[in-house]
């Protein structure tokens, strides 16, 4: 029987949009389905359920939307539990003060933080460590719904609270936050970790997914910039001398992970800025002559569009790019294959502009000019794109960018993360305390 159940609900991996827009990446029904299973299991076994980075990005709207689902499940099953809600949204004034104190530094290859980036940020969240989870559990929580959180914090809070080795607990947590992705074949099924004094054992709950020393070692490197370990608030987990050993065909034993504390204790702040609205249009080029001439065609049409719009649309108000799938759609300028000649090319016309109207106008002008551009050697004068449907210009929503990705030195690991407690009895919210 597990001592607790954890769920990592979000990431920055999905890009800046969800944090900016305040939306969950996924449908409410699916969130309901997953959360219902986890919550019912936690209550049946009477063990804590910890949800981190609620609602994909862990800001206030994300936490609120997750709670909305949670309360509906509680009501449906008349569940009783003590709920802790850990908030992770950061006030701009807090970051402004930290910047003025010189207690902000870039997290990785990111430009230094400016007051302008703070002012223009749509939303800021802090990525909590284990301490807020521990405080929630010490406050008697049966269920914790946390905003933006370190993946490892969600799954290491209970063992660290109970005095287990921090390095092992964090390494274990870092692996199981991706469920059975560390297995062979990797997948999304639940995983069980067994933590002891000097090792942990991983076992996928799907008998067809095997945790092997190689697959677990590989996953220990997942999404981390360096191979010797990974940083967490308050220190680093050193995995350079870890032993991965098989325990039968299905399980792997891990030992030797070490926690190296480091000061000052820092929290990463993530923030995004709204940069525009996107329209796209897609069409396939099949004519071998057009395919051969693709680079010239796209370069020339881009110039024509810019010339056409001159005087009516400010160039600063739009960004047009053609994405030729089949040539370098996936890698852009980083593509290393020389002069690929596919049978066909999907050209995506991609416009980001300061208003949806401008984006739509530019997209339609670009699409038409691409459709009817007369390149050298043209035979097919009816048009250059096979468009699968019409209307063919599609609104693709708001566009955000990560502009804040910085470490802030804090005096107290809890200072950014307010915790509210709510007693739920038979599915009904009763007392609320902070």
């Amino acid at each position, binding site marked *: 029987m597990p001592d607790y159940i954890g769920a990592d609900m979000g990431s920055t991996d999905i*890009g800046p949009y969800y944090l900016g827009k305040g939306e969950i990446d996924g449908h409410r029904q699916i969130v309901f389905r997953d959360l219902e299973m986890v919550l019912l299991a936690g209550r049946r076994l009477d063990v804590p359920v910890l949800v981190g980075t609620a609602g994909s990005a862990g800001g206030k709207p994300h936490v609120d939307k997750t709670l909305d689902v949670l309360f509906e499940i509680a009501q449906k099953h008349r569940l009783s539990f003590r709920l802790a809600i850990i908030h992770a949204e950061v006030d701009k004034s807090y970051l402004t003060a930290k910047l003025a104190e010189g207690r902000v530094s870039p997290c990785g290859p990111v430009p230094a933080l400016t007051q302008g980036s703070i002012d223009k940020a749509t939303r800021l969240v802090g990525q909590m460590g284990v301490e807020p989870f521990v405080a929630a559990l010490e406050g008697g929580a049966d269920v914790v719904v946390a905003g933006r959180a370190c993946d490892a914090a969600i799954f290491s809070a209970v063992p660290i609270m109970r005095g287990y080795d921090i390095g092992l607990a964090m390494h274990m947590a870092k692996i199981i936050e991706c469920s059975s992705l560390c297995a062979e074949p990797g997948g999304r099924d639940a995983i069980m970790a067994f933590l002891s004094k000097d090792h942990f054992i991983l076992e996928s709950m799907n008998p067809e997914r095997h945790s092997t020393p190689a697959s677990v070692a590989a996953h220990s490197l997942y999404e981390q910039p360096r191979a010797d370990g990974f940083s967490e608030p308050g220190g680093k987990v050193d995995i350079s001398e870890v032993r991965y050993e098989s325990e039968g065909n299905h399980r792997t034993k891990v030992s030797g992970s070490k926690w190296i504390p480091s000061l000052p204790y820092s929290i990463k702040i993530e923030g995004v800025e709204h940069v525009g609205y996107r329209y796209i249009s897609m069409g396939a080029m099949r004519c071998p002559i057009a395919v051969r001439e693709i680079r010239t065609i796209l370069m020339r049409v881009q110039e024509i569009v810019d010339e056409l719009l001159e005087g009516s649309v400010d160039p600063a108000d739009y960004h047009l790019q053609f994405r030729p799938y089949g040539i370098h759609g*996936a*890698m852009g300028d980083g593509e290393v294959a020389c002069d690929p000649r596919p049978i066909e090319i999907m050209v995506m016309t991609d416009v980001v502009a300061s208003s949806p109207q401008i984006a739509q106008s530019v997209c339609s002008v670009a699409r038409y000019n691409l459709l009817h551009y007369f390149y050298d050697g043209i035979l097919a004068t009816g048009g250059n794109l096979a468009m699968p449907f019409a209307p063919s210009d599609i609104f693709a929503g708001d566009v955000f960018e*990560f502009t804040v990705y910085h470490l802030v030195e804090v005096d107290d690991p809890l200072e950014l993360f307010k915790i509210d407690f709510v007693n739920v009895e038979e599915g009904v919210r009763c007392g609320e305390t902070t």
Partner: protein
Amino acid sequence: MVKLHEMVRVLRSKNAGPFQLTYDLIFDGIESYERAVRSGIFNARDMAARLKRSETEVTVDLYPVGNAIKITVPRIHSSGSVGDTDVFGCQQHAPLMEIEVP
């Protein structure tokens, strides 16, 4: 000479946060791993040339306990920003597949 993709069980790219891209080369065993390390080609200069990046941007780490090599570079465009082509950074590994390992 052996091609890198014939010596590995995993060869992937992935975001390491929205501003970095990391490549994991997990070899199919200690022999392949040691052969790759002995070849000396998995260094910042050669990998930078392969990835069309500058040498100072590239880190190459060895992870012997996992028979793995990790290469990390800053992203040209941060994840999901206007010019980005790959929000998850998971389809950037192809330039490494054909590396010839002596």
